[in-house]
């Protein structure tokens, strides 16, 4: 399938490329990270064909049937569609169904639990594009959510269709597409509340163009918002807005074996196949991954598998961070070390990658190394390597 290639604005001359600027024909390799609909264009096309063949019903405004959307996210061996979101299939089901409803979808969870990825995948599958995105920050204003003006045109022509700069939300309504609102809780509550009337009335009034001027939402329009629990959380969100979203909490992966598999897979995606499978990157042995994931799980849950309490660091010990550590450890081994990844590399990288400079966190990690790791190092070679490398780091 091709990119929809929408041109969202008429702000010619600003020098900023817009949604449609990256031509679908351009080599995706030229971009660090192409959007999901380009990366998985082949899979989306397969699913589209599958829907047509089976006669699956597509909700109004949807590119794919709900079943195909689900298959796109959780994968299907039968159709050769890869799994992209792991760990909680029922959550995906609920999310897909929520998108069919009148409400928006709110994905909440700890950082690094793949909320944004899930929102990207869902909008790519449902609307064929994942680029209608509002990035929530403290500086987000109402203009970003509603519309703003091309002031040069506004001054010369007055308010007109041509001088109006639509926001991604506005575009999404017009074209019946999924709009993503990232990190919605980073915005001030007043700005968040701009969505209330949009979501309930499914229209956006533009009084500047006349008393009856409005943008009406076409079928297929909905909002997927993500909210980070480590920031201000959702409790500051107004009740009115909360009512207009279905909440889904994305939990970190709990199963150790599964997380190891996940890290392995991501590692492959980032750095290509390991030397064992003909690649040129040093293989990260399974037992080293085990150490890495165990450390992350211990610190994330606040207790070891044996039940010993561990001080939880402030920093987020997500699977994504674990992948970062694994990548960094591989790079260190490849470019600075002897080409084998050991627990020692992992220990060094955890210090750099996972610790975001909080004084207290260093203490917590020291406590962990001093108590848990020291104990394990007594009768386990890998942990011994980890301990030897980690001990001087946190002195």
């Amino acid at each position, binding site marked *: 399938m091709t990119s929809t290639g929408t041109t969202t604005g008429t702000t010619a001359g600003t020098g900023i490329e817009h949604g449609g600027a990256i031509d679908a024909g351009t080599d995706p390799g030229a971009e660090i990270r192409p959007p999901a609909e380009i990366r998985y264009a082949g899979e989306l096309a397969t699913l589209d064909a599958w829907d047509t063949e089976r006669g699956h019903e597509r909700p109004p405004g949807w590119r794919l049937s*709900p*079943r195909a959307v*689900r298959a796109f996210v*959780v994968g299907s061996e039968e159709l050769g569609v890869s799994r992209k979101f792991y760990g909680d*299939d*029922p959550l995906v*089901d*609920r999310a*897909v*169904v*929520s998108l*069919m*409803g*009148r*409400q928006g979808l709110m994905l*909440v*969870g700890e950082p690094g639990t793949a909320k944004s990825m899930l929102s990207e995948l869902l909008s790519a599958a449902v609307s064929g594009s994942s680029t209608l995105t509002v990035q929530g920050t403290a500086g987000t204003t109402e203009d970003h959510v509603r519309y703003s003006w091309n002031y040069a045109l506004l001054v010369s022509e007055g308010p007109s269709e041509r001088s109006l700069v639509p926001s991604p939300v506005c575009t999404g309504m017009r074209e019946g597409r999924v709009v993503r609102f990232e990190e919605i809780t980073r915005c001030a509550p007043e700005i968040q509340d701009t969505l209330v009337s949009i979501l309930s009335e499914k229209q956006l009034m533009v009084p500047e163009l006349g008393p009856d001027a409005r943008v009406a939402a076409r079928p297929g329009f909905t909002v997927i918002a993500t*909210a980070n*629990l480590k920031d201000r*959380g*959702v*409790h500051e969100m107004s009740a009115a807005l*909360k*009512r207009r979203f*279905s*909440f*889904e*909490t994305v939990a970190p992966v709990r199963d150790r074996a599964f997380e190891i598999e996940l890290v392995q897979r991501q590692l492959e995606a980032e750095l290509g196949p390991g030397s064992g499978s003909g690649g040129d990157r040093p293989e990260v042995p399974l037992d080293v991954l085990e150490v890495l994931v165990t450390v992350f799980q211990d610190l994330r849950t606040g207790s070891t598998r044996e039940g010993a309490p561990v001080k939880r660091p402030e920093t987020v010990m997500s699977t994504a961070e674990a992948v970062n550590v694994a990548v960094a450890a591989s790079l260190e081994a490849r470019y600075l070390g002897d080409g084998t990844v050991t627990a020692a590399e992992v220990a060094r990288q955890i210090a750099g990658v996972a610790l975001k400079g909080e004084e207290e966190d260093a203490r917590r990690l020291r406590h962990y190394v001093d108590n848990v790791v020291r104990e394990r190092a007594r009768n386990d070679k890998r942990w011994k390597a980890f301990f030897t490398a980690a001990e001087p780091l946190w002195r």
Partner: protein
Amino acid sequence: MAVSGSAASAREGGAAARRADSVWERAPERLRAGADAVRRLRAERGIHFAPVRHHSPACALAVRAAIEELRPAAVLIEGPEEFTRLIPDLLHEATRPPIAVLSLGGSGSASSAGDGDSGEGAGFYPLASFSPEWVALRAGHDVGAELAFVDRPFGERSAAEGALSGRAASGHGEGGADGGTGQGDTGQDDAARPDPFARTLMSERYLAHSEAIAALARRLGCRDHDEVWDQLFEARRSAELADWRTVFDDVFAWSALARLDYEESVLAADGSLDREARMAARVAETADRLAASPGGPVLVVTGAFHTLALVEALSGAPEGSAVRDRQPEGGFGPTAQGEAWLVRYDHERLDGLRGYGAGMPSPGYYERLHGAHLRELGLLDAAPDSGSGDPRGRSSARPAPTSRPAGPVGARALATEILVDVARGASGRGHAVSLPQVSSAAESATRLAELRERAYPCRTDLLDAVRSCYVQDDGGVGGPGEPERPLGLAVAEVFGGRSLGDVPPGSASPPLVRDVRERVRAVRLVIDDSVPRTARLDARRTAAHRAKRQVLALLDFVGAGFGQLVSGPDHVAGRGLGLITEEWQYCWTPLVEARLVEMVHLGATLEAVALARLYEAEERLAGTGTAAAVGAGAGAGAGTGGAASVDAVARLVAQALVIGMGSHLPRIVSLLRTTLDTDRDLDSVVSGARRLLGLWHARVELGAEEHAGELLDLVSQALATAAYLVDDLGKTRAEDEDAAIGTLIDLRSLLRDAASAGDSGSALGGAGGADGVGGANRTAVVRELARLRDEKSTAPAVAGALLALGFTDGEVPDDVLVTRVRGALTAGADPGTAVRFLGGAMRAAPDLILHTPEMFDAVDDALRALQGDAFLAVLPDLRRAFTWLRPTETHRLAQRVAERTGARVDQVDVRVALSEEDLAAGLALDRELAAVLERDGLAHWAGSGAADSTGGKA
């Protein structure tokens, strides 16, 4: 792997899976052979198999349809064969599920009388209205089929599994990793389990842990084997479920796949093969018998996991040899007999989610689902509730428990109703759910079901819809693994269910259980469900409350685990006697019935059991006696061996009165009288007498007015004994002085109470009167005390206490007090003795030193006169002596001392602020010290309390 073919076909949903022939073509060889054998057995020997999952409404509907169509001559059901005897009671019209057959192991209750409360070897065979086995019984009976249970007797099974339990824990270790469902289904090896009786005979460990089913779950996108089951079977429409041939074929394929995962050695070790040997043999016997005199087909209703084995054994397949080899040469002989009872059961224990391993989770939901299917099929008219699968099952004895006019027709209507009920439950608990939320949940559930290719929203779809639409923040629903929240409680209530069954009056239920149920109902305690309830009782004023309390106390006394006193006067322990109302918490769980069943050997009525327990306690007291030595060692020295303690017997008197068994008092009273003659422990006598006096005060609320005279008479006799024993106090050794003074203070309170006792009750006999109880005996005690006070050889602390008390009571004049105090503390006296004396006085009347300047002076002088070394030697005791003062009194004393010495008050009265850490450090030190002492064999130095507290840890 082997599963792929069938799993792939199952993935296509209903349609393909139902094309039986093509399914079997893609199945593993052994399965295909099994399917052929099923057909052959059906055609040649008239044996039809109904493989079921326990407590599955889908299977229940199919079983019903099969029986109605086949009209079998015999229905054989998995379940210990000795249960066959109970079938008439199971069929009784007053029997209302959920119920369970309770087995107490092979030994029978009579021989295990000694350890009746151990709970070892008890097992439940639960039946819900939607259990296929239950439906098989009822429907089989309706078509006039012969009914029988055919499994291995529980006694044999329990012995075999008991031997295995140690290994089972490690053998299935891998099961723990794949999630919480269905774990620990054998139960008896899990020490942490709170409910020793909730061991089910319908285990499904193998299905929960099967690799094949796990693979199927991954393919179908299901989270666990329960959802796989829902997807494949429960999601079928009512009419599809009535197509029993297809349902059973599919269930057979599903479970046979799981069966192939397990090696013969595992199945042999846990007794599965032995059970299957028995079942196969019984099926063959029945089929042959019926073939001889043409009757009709045989329907075999068993857990699906066993079906393949039974088929292979019966058809002579080579794989069946393991089972056939376990059949004895001459068959198993006549049906085994064994003890088994019908007891009421509840949904809570039926719920697989709560770890009891009885099978399917959420019995409340599945019960309603079953009802909805039946209504859709027109098999259940607008019954007053969805509680029973059988329209005839409405018992006339009691009204329907709910007032729902008519249940939903069909599973789709049920889905909406469930969502509404959850919303209502959550709103009632403070989690508001609005109507739009409910409607969006209904919509969401329907869409989820469509997405997951189910005919209507199933359990997980509903739960997901609740999670999607009722949760408006990041906290989740709440429940297992999450903090408790109102919504989670509402979900637990609706899906878990609250039903409690009923069993008929008759032999199936032990008379004791019936009696207790009647007793409890008679006093209007609610036992229709297993929800914990609270009863607030004012026994003093309300006769009905008195009756309730009596029943509650009676059940508590026999150890039925029904209710417990939360607050209020406890006459037996002697606590909270001043309180007027009492609060009991009670809850009629299956556990209560199980405990009662264990007591059947004690008697047929609650009274009989209580009496037996009372006599037991009495014999214990009379026999071994000396619990007396607990209190003061004073006087408990020589010659008391073998005698009972007055206090313990008085306690028994209290117990008898509290449980309303005053009529059996004479025996205990006579024991008490002899004990009063033999007990040489003043403390025990005094405590006993106070207890008796307390009972007399509570005579109205205890309904013991008729015993009032006797109680006072006993108090009087106790006073006489006390008068005799008082002398022992004088000989108290230094280390026992504390206890002795405690006794003394109690004795004084007893005297006071006794003096006022007779006043309120006018028409008292004998011992009581306007002058109080036991006038002469009281005087005797007072006289003895006075004598002791003036006796030179009296232990100094006792003398000090007597003097202080005497002064407070006005028996000792001022000048005598001062002289005695000065005498005791005089410069020439031994400092140790002096401080003991002072300690006794301070403990008995702490404020004396404040109110009596002369005493203050005397103490002051004495302390000043002490030499440095001597002072240091007595300082600890001295310090202790002053701790009996209250803080304000300490402060006043400090003021005096400051005046006298010219110091400032704050220099004398120093408050030491101790933090929690200090306390912890102190405790740690204490423990360490105790440990050291114990190591050195000096534990008694640390005092008995310290030794006890460390004993467990050492």
